């Protein structure tokens, strides 16, 4: 009995291995299907072939909403660029479920497909594992949203379009002091999330340096049924007049609602992960009235109008900061390719070296939705200033 089972399983394995050998070609076609309109435009407008961009991010699982946003933002950019008729892109986007092991598998799938430039990953954890691989293989990597410094440290081929976590933390502390937004600060962060913990760590360090008093520090796990009464009560009884929330908008919406129901109304201050709270389906925007956050992207900005309309038409929702970062990533890659004069027939390694050279060149800068005149340091960090906005009457108003 065991033999038949093992034989059957062995046969399945053989088949799957064979499928793997032939996988190169077929995954390419599925990738083409996935990037939809972008690739068909590529096919018609290509003269010297197309650049193969591999994308990685979670499209299933609990972080899928962020991965899909970066994917869709990039697709809009690719469509626009391909329509210009010059440099042509084709993107193959692979799921990593926000996990290192799956991320590396996604990366290897893309390598088999013939990826020349890597766009991703969306989350820091997966990105740190993938960046080690791309560094060894010398493939240029630009991440829209993996903001941990662990992603870029020691790897010259990895660049970020988002702010780094420490950068956000220190800027936030400085901003609060400079604008006298609060004197006693409470922090509520997600201790199961590298992004949240990273910002908190830098924030706390900066706060003690510049004399900002943190009166309450509480955490919560990644779980949708979190009750924030303990955290809020702690902040309230410590007399905090400002609550710093370096977290994503979904738990933040719960905090705002619970603070209101317990009658606690301090100033709330968030980071770029907070962007998206106003477009959260069914969210009562009056809860966010007076919420301050630092975001690189404002959907109501004049310059973002075109992107927002296209995005809404294609995906039926308003883009958030993740989508905008994704859009900017592709344009940054485009600008660097144009500047360095790269052609699609070059191999990934050559492209990588040229791209690194271009990205770190002093005269290379990109104007995007999330910042104008973005430049990159050799450490892979982007230079752009977060804009402090305040929610007034349900829209962002620059502070």
């Amino acid at each position, binding site marked *: 009995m065991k033999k038949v089972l093992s034989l059957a399983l062995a046969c399945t394995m053989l088949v799957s291995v064979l499928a793997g050998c032939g996988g190169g070609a077929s995954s390419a076609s599925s990738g083409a299907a996935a990037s939809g309109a972008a690739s068909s435009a590529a096919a018609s407008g290509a003269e010297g072939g197309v650049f193969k961009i591999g994308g990685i991010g979670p499209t*299933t699982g609990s972080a899928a*909403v962020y991965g899909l946003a970066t994917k869709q933002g990039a697709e809009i950019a690719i469509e626009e660029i391909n329509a210009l008729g010059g440099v042509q892109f084709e993107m193959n986007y692979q799921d990593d479920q926000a996990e290192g092991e799956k991320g590396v598998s996604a990366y290897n799938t893309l390598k088999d497909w013939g990826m020349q430039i890597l766009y991703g990953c969306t989350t820091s954890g997966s990105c740190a594992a993938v960046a080690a691989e791309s560094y060894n293989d010398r493939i240029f990597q630009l991440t829209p949203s993996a903001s941990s410094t662990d992603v870029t440290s020691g790897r010259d081929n990895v660049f970020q379009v988002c702010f780094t976590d420490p950068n956000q933390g220190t800027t936030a502390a400085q901003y609060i002091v400079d604008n006298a937004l609060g004197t006693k600060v409470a922090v509520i962060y997600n201790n199961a999330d590298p992004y949240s913990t990273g910002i908190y760590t830098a924030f706390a360090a900066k706060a003690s340096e510049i004399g900002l008093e943190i009166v309450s520090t509480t955490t919560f796990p990644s779980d949708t049924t979190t009750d924030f009464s303990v955290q809020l*009560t702690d902040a309230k009884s410590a007399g905090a007049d400002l609550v710093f929330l370096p977290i994503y908008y979904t738990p933040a919406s719960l905090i705002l609602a619970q603070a209101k129901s317990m009658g606690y109304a301090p100033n709330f201050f968030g980071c770029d992960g907070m962007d998206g709270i106003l477009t959260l389906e*069914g969210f009562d925007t009056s809860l966010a009235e007076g919420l301050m956050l630092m975001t690189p992207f404002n959907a109501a900005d004049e310059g973002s109008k075109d992107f927002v309309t296209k995005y809404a038409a294609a995906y039926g929702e308003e883009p958030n900061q993740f989508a905008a970062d994704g859009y900017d990533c592709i344009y940054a890659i485009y600008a660097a390719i144009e500047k360095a004069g790269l052609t699609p027939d070059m191999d990934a390694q050559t492209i990588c070296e040229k791209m690194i050279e271009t990205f770190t060149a002093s005269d290379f800068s990109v104007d995007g939705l999330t910042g104008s005149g973005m430049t990159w340091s050799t450490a892979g960090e982007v230079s752009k200033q977060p804009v402090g906005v305040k929610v007034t009457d349900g829209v962002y108003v620059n502070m």
Partner: protein
Amino acid sequence: MTFLSYLINGISLGSVYAIIALGYTMVYGIAKMLNFAHGDVIMVGAYVSFYATSLYGLPTWASVLVAAIVCTVLGVTIERLAYKPLRTAPSLAVLITAIGVSYFLQNAAQLAFGSSPIVFPSAVKFEGIRLFDGQLVISGITIVTVLACIVIMIALTLFINKTKMGRAMRAVSEDKGAAQLMGVNVNSTISMTFAIGSALAAIAGVLLCSAYPTLQPTTGSMPGIKAFTAAVFGGIGSIPGAMIGGLLLGVIQILGSAYISTQLSDAVVFAVLIVVLLVKPTGLMGKKMNEKV
């Protein structure tokens, strides 16, 4: 005062766990299987109720009814397709199938409803009670959840003890073979159990999302595990046990994070569970298993 308000929040959280745990414990008691997909049925129920209200403008009570019907059909279908063929298989095979169903529901929901979280409009419009100049707030949803929990518990207990179907369920739970010999239709009894459990899941889904108003395809999984823990805590298979287990779990979680550490709140909950099981190996209200020779 702070302690009291923590206690109330704990009861509020606990009553949500309790209502989910009731479904778990019932299916376990009769079908002797850990239905890991229960948490995801809850998520489906919440989505159905949400869309019934937002798309078709149904009133809250009607949307809960629709959700209950859809979940009942879903629960019975799952039972027919995935669990019934495994009635004689080892219990682990059923467990893995339940996990497969759980993955299936989560991923199907993502494709059907999208992965973006939705803020669930509270099913309870009632503001709540403010005591001591607003120092102590008991929200409307807390009251409704606790009441719903008690009503369901009493109704279930009566149903199981007083009706013919209930008697059949107890018989199946006691001894499947003997029940069949006595003329009990085991298959339809188990289907009925799943129908009731799933209808409860729909109600639990609406209450869960009213209390913690974000809804996404993975919403059900963690509360599902917590509720499963609660069911074991109270003694799996026991209906009052599920209620007590759920309430205690919620209270411990809130008090643990308030007085021990917010970083380790989950660890505290599970550590208490372990201690309880060591002292009472079949849970707080669990039946003592007599060993037959």
